[in-house]
């Protein structure tokens, strides 16, 4: 066991910090929040420097690193600006399902444009009214000759409007008879790639969001959308397990973003209270201010270790669902606490857009819900702790 970052990891942090200092300028951010998207130039730069595709295998033009390195990059980005950080680091959301060995044909087609910042991906797992439960997928994929015919609806897909392709969790069927939406074959689910421009694919924006203002969330519908039979990731029936593993990974990613968001809020609160005077003293001289800062820092530090540990375990192939969920629960809570206190410590300025922390507060809350609100995560953790009961 040792807790020091390696030199190469410190270099990643430093490189990302330099990137965000140069690229995330206030004017750009404010404009991007209005348009709901980052400028293409920033996305391209992040890709060129190997940040947004840091975990994509290098044979597909990615950084060839692990989730741990992704986590370090996502944290530092979100620390500077959480919305921009999320937009960049979630740009290939779902493409991770193609990282496994043996996915060469699909990976060769879909990963390089993602790694290059030219195309976005959207994992389409959740369905309307099903909450976080993906075990009973209603979207069907029926095999018909050389094609899968896909029917169904997916909810709150990140990059739902802008993605070049979706990674869609489907209940796979053997025949192409009239699709029966009541089919529910939890043990025969598959992940299938669907190009966004496939006829029969429709998108409907989920509208503006509380935070994550440069990520577009959408509901994606499939009506007899036909894709090549080769677009299946692996073999039929592997989809649920692969999705659950992806969810573990994605929760650790979100946890890292939350961590950065909380840290960004803390940084600003520390700066502000060290500089601002009231009643003849610096704010940071008041004991209660000091205690708030201490609580924020202690919460973030211990959450950081949980996130790093989970990422390391994921890279080693030993991360269970409980560990990933706990990392996200802990990090999102620390982030919300820090962002909330930061708003409070800045007083009126905390509520003003100009001082940025209001923005961190909204992003932290968004991350607290995204990929599992606390209740969902506790269900997952408890499942792992308690196991089966006689």
């Amino acid at each position: 066991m040792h807790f020091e970052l390696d030199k190469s990891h410190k270099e990643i942090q430093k490189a990302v910090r330099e990137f965000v200092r140069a690229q995330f300028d206030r004017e750009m951010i404010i404009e991007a929040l209005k348009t709901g998207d980052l400028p293409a130039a920033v996305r391209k730069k992040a890709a060129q420097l190997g940040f947004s595709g840091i975990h994509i295998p290098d044979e597909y033009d990615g950084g060839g690193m692990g989730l741990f390195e992704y986590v370090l990059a996502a944290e530092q980005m979100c620390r500077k600006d959480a919305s921009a950080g999320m937009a960049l680091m979630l740009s290939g959301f779902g493409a991770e399902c193609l990282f496994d060995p043996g996915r060469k044909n699909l990976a060769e087609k879909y990963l390089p444009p993602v790694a290059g910042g030219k195309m976005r991906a959207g994992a389409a797992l959740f369905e309307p009214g099903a909450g976080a439960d993906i075990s009973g997928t209603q979207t069907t994929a029926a095999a018909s000759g050389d094609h899968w015919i896909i029917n169904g609806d997916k909810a709150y897909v990140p990059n739902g409007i802008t993605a070049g392709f979706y990674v869609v969790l489907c209940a796979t069927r053997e025949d192409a008879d009239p699709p029966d939406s009541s089919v529910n074959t939890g043990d025969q689910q598959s992940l299938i790639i669907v190009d966004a421009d496939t006829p029969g694919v429709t998108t409907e924006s989920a509208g503006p969001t509380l935070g994550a203002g440069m990520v577009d969330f959408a509901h994606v519908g499939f009506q007899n959308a036909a894709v090549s039979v080769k677009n299946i990731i692996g073999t039929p029936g592997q989809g649920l397990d692969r999705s659950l593993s992806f969810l573990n990974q994605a929760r650790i990613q979100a946890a890292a973003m939350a961590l950065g968001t909380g840290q960004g809020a803390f940084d600003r609160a520390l700066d502000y209270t060290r500089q601002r005077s009231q009643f003849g003293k610096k704010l940071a001289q008041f004991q209660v201010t000091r205690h708030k800062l201490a609580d924020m820092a202690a919460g973030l530090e211990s959450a950081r270790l949980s996130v790093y540990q989970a990422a390391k375990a994921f890279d080693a192939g030993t991360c269970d669902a409980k560990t990933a969920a706990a990392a996200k629960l802990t990090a999102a809570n620390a982030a919300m606490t820090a962002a909330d206190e930061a708003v409070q410590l800045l007083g009126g300025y905390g509520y003003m857009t100009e001082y940025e922390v209001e923005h961190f507060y909204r992003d932290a809350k968004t991350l607290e819900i995204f990929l599992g609100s606390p209740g969902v995560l506790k269900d997952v953790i408890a499942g792992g702790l308690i196991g089966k009961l006689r």
Partner: protein
Amino acid sequence: MEILAYTDDHHRFRSRMRAFLEKEITPWTDQWEADHITPKWAWQKLGRAGFLCTGVSPEYGGMGGDFLYSVIAAEEMAKTNHTGLASALHSDVVVPYIQAFGSGEQKKKYLPGCVSGDIIAAVAMTEPDAGSDLASMTTTAAEKNGGIELNGAKTFISNGINAGLVIVAAKDPDEPNPYNAVSLYIVEDGTPGFKRGRHLEKMGFHSQDTAELFFTNCRIPGQNRLGQKGAGFGMLMEKLQQERLVTSICAQAAAELILEITTDFCKNATDRNQKPLSKSQATQFAIVEMTTEVKLGRAFLDKLIAGHMAGEQAIVDTSMAKYWITDMAKRISRRCADLFGDYGFCEACPIVRAFRDVRVMPVFAGTNEIMKNIAARFMGL
């Protein structure tokens, strides 16, 4: 057992106001949120219908109602789920300065317009470099040649853009003791030297116009001072009690609304097996726990309102109510959002606007930390 003695007249007033708001106001709020301001005609509509300044005496066009009418008005406005038509601020925070401290002439001149909605009122205390520390304000009011010249800047002024009348706190530059230096002045829209700054961008409160105000050699007539010279600090301290009480009422109403919307959602939305979300035990406990907090706030608040109406001084309890209830509203907004799942981070979700709006409450009308300092002082700690 009810703590507050609402009469049938009060209940009828509430019904009338609720119907009016549902028809005339709520349909517009999305638009005003997008516009980042509420039009003046909405204020006039509300005033002409009799829902502004219910406490002003009939002599000046008001209905001379007791404080329960103010409570009702604040609660019903909260149900419109927007903040731009800040009638409680106008009716129960700013206008009372004129009612309490204004000369006969000032009352005659301004109160009828405040009641009708033709004059929107604001109060300007906070300064960019002073925050909650009123004693360190730097805006000056030099009284000379029968006139008064104001110089300085104020910030975070609610109704700042719309205001037709601003009550400005400023210091006599010749008085060294800050507690004796402050007086209050009435500044009308259009006075030369009075400029509004940027409309400030905020987390929420979008339909509310929050602005900076600048006074540069701004000359107003000598009769525009409100009350005694140098008595400003005392007047502020006196009226801040009601401001904090009104803030608590608005926060309480907001918490009740957020929780009601969320509870209804959980009762009606179903999971994949058509089971209502409210059948999940964790959701039940969350709703029960939040309902308990809301009821605790309500009982404490009602008791405080009853005391306030009986003329009791309750600085400690008012400070406590302000901090606890506004924090409670914030906590509830955070926890309720979780119960909506991903919908909970979409602006389309009916509580998301409130999530953003209530976050200012622990900050304004004196931050909650200031509230605790005050309570500690008056508890002899």
